[in-house]
């Protein structure tokens, strides 16, 4: 089973990297870009097909390592 974890900075946290990318996109004249926030994606493969168990394990993984919940949020997608 395949899962994807998406870690993003909380809205209240400044994202200087996102701001720099946003500036670069504007300099490239990519139209309509209002703002950019940078995040991380982790693709994780799991043994078996117990979706609920995988979700639980991934939450644990996020809380313990993948995200720093002081400044980051995470979302889990399965399948």
């Amino acid at each position: 089973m395949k899962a994807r974890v998406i870690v993003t900075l909380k809205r209240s946290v400044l994202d200087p990297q996102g701001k720099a990318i946003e500036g670069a996109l504007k300099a490239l004249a990519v139209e309509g870009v209002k703002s950019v926030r940078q995040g991380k994606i982790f693709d994780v493969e799991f043994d078996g097909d117990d979706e609920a168990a995988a979700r639980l394990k991934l939450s644990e993984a996020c809380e313990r390592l993948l995200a720093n919940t002081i400044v980051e949020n995470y979302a889990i997608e399965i399948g």
Partner: protein
Amino acid sequence: MRAAVILFPGVNREGDAARALRRATGEKPAIVWHAERELPGGLDLVVLPGGFSYGDYLRCGAIAARSPIMAAVGGHAARGGLVMGICNGFQILCEAGLLPGVLMRNAELRFVCKMQHLRVENAQTPFTRGYAPGEVVKFAVAHGEGNFVADEETIRRIEAEGRVAFRYCDAQGLAGPGSNPNGSMNSIAGVFNDRFNVLGLMPHPENLIDPLVGGVDGQALFASLAA
């Protein structure tokens, strides 16, 4: 004073930290590999040195903070033992939850490597009692992720409890955007935990112990610890 320096893969300032400790205490500190589960007995101080543990992968300090030795470092701190994290060591202590806040990418996205004035904000701790309150010192800074961030309530509490150890400032001791190298909230360069036995700081006192390399303002910190 018995000290240990923890060695994580990718760290590169352990020799500098060990040299500063040896000069101040007269004793060679133990070097402890991150995969150990126990610290040597009878330790007073644990130092987490600077560098790039695990290549700064995931987040600076994140992987090192979960290494086996960190449970023992946490236990040492819980027993009231002294812990100091310098630069990457500070990032590791924040990631391990032994200090509040997070070190984010520098606000201007540049690696900053220069001499930097700091103001000693609390000179009543085992780490800083060798300085005068408000004293302006000059340490080296060398980091890309030193932008100290915490939520408003945490910042308010840190300030109210006198837990800011050092603040970035100019030569006159004035803090402000012009003398803040990385965008840290309230120009915070170093913080204590709530019991004042854990210190994390981005600047490098261990590199300012010899006039030959530009100054000795770091000596008082190690002398405080050795006293």
